[in-house]
């Protein structure tokens, strides 16, 4: 039973990180029907920006919790802004010129962006793993055999707040309505006075900044990052988006957590060597049995 709860906690933690990344996939896909292959790399860049901020400002282990939270807020904010702008830049350079081209063209371009980002990061930071210092006081909550770290609680709390805010933004504000309208029909959205290109840029900004949060939390949780990390995390997050129904924001959150749990329990009960296979098996099975995902109303191909 301890194993169950421990893997539940671990799975939830990594699952919320996948959910944060999945939001970007699902939002971009919802609006321009593009699998933004470079999104996983944005996540990875987010982690590296976090590292850079920590190094640059010379953060060390914070003495108390409020100071640690202040550090975290600062790191997240900078990383979100940088990655958000990076997302807009990627769209402007690599996707906008081919907006009306067939999907294959955009997909190849996205893979190109992914290679560029990976290698730029590798050239700047080097190919070896980079360690992140511990900035949080090492607080653990122990319930019998089950341990929950402060970091895990923070990851969960930060993600939850951001997801609720995002849900509110999309469902209850003018901007959110414009986003939903653009996702439904670009031409009609433009006719009713929505700045479609602006909305697309905004979507890239929000999606990328969510990935940045995921990246920073990932780095702080595992204490080590590598320029390769974006690919696998990105794929799993994409799986999460598909599982939840692509284009569906709450679906991405649920999907992320389910993938995290599957991975946690799979690693705990079956074998950690096969950990990475579960997400892919789920992906293939979902696509074959229910391509619309759990909550998706979209059909798999609108072409």
């Amino acid at each position, binding site marked *: 039973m301890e194993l169950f709860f421990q893997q539940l906690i671990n799975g939830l933690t990594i699952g919320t990180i996948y959910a944060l990344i999945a939001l970007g996939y699902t939002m971009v896909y919802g609006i321009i029907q593009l699998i933004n292959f470079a999104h996983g790399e944005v996540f990875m860049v987010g982690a590296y920006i976090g590292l850079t901020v920590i190094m640059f400002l010379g953060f060390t282990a914070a003495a108390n919790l409020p100071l640690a939270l202040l550090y975290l807020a600062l790191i997240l904010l900078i990383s979100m802004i940088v990655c958000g702008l990076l997302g807009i830049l990627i769209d402007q350079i690599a996707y906008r010129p081919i907006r*009306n081209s067939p*999907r294959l*063209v955009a997909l190849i371009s996205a893979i190109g962006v992914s290679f*560029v980002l990976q290698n730029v990061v590798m050239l700047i930071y080097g190919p070896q793993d980079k360690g992140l210092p511990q900035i949080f006081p090492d607080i653990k909550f122990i319930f019998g055999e089950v341990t929950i770290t402060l970091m895990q609680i923070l990851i969960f709390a930060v993600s939850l707040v951001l997801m609720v805010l995002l849900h509110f933004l999309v469902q209850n504000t003018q901007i959110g309505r414009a986003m939903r309208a653009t996702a439904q029909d670009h031409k009609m959205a433009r006719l009713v006075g929505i700045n479609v290109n602006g909305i697309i840029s905004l979507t890239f900004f929000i999606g990328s900044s969510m990935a940045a949060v995921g990246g920073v939390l990932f780095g702080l949780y595992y204490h080590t990052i590598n320029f390769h990390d974006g690919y696998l995390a990105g794929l799993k997050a994409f799986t999460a988006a598909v599982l939840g129904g692509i284009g569906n924001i709450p679906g991405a959150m649920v999907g992320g957590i389910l993938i995290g749990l599957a991975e946690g329990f799979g690693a705990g009960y079956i074998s950690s060597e096969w950990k990475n296979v579960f997400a892919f098996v789920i992906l293939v099975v979902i*696509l074959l049995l229910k391509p619309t995902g759990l909550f998706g109303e979209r059909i798999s191909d609108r072409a």
Partner: protein
Amino acid sequence: MSQIRLQRHWIYGLIIFLCFAIPFIDRSAYHQEVLTTAGIYILLALGLNIIVGYAGLLNLGYAAFFAIGAYTYASLNLAWHVPFWVAIPIAFVVTSIFGFLVGLPVLRVKGDYLAIVTLGFGEIVRIIFNNLEITGGPNGLLGIAHPTLFYPVWNNGLAWARLDFGVQSFPYYYLVLVFVIFVAYFSLRLDRSKLGRAWIAVREDEVAAGCMGIPVARVKLAAFAVGSSIAGIAGTIYAAKQGTVTPDSFDFILSVMILAMVVLGGLGSVFGVILGGLVLSILPELLREFSIYRMLIFGLVMILMMIFRPQGFLGNVRRKYELTSRRKYF
């Protein structure tokens, strides 16, 4: 018209002759080695071209079929000493069966969802090879036999001489060359065949093709099976040449590289794909000094090509219109 066709045949003949003559003109083993590797890539690119270029089905897990081919020969050879020449048709059949099975999802998903299913499949295959004991886990399989060839000689009567391919370069060069010529010819013929025309129809408009009586599902599965089996051949040759197979040589990057060869060369164009394969496998050798920038340059080229010339170096007119039109290709 016949005048032009005749000239074309002469040009093809000349090119093939030059390819056969290269090892005699340039005796550098390194160059032969690079060209052999390029040839294996070209084989893969030609196979993928059938799936992506002809039938318009995006496959991002093509390296898996290459891996299946390589592991088929490796395990058959290590377990039962199955010789290379026997393993080739077996690998061909095995990979085409896998291609068929992986192709089954095409009946349900389309477009980039299909790309993701194939990507997932590719990863699953790699992880399985990485974790199974019978495939040697992450260390892979070692000590796979190199091919041997018996050929007749006249030595006071007919006798059989034995050629061990070993670790020399030139026998593999010729082996790969023969297969490339064969597969290229096969692709060209296939393009004009009934099946090839059915692929074009399905690619351009699936519904219309179905209405004209084309069995869409069967035609798509055929593309998967045929395209994958070529990767099986390439995999067998690769395993025989290397003598070892490891799971990490069949990663996602390889699938993307092959796709890039097809796309940069020209989707659906056999000569374009050969050119793309040559350029992308020789370029890294020339850029050896800048090897850390290699993937960066590669990524930039992919983006720029998609923006300015999506039909590739030698894309044909029909594909050009498909790829630059506002209609969805996938």
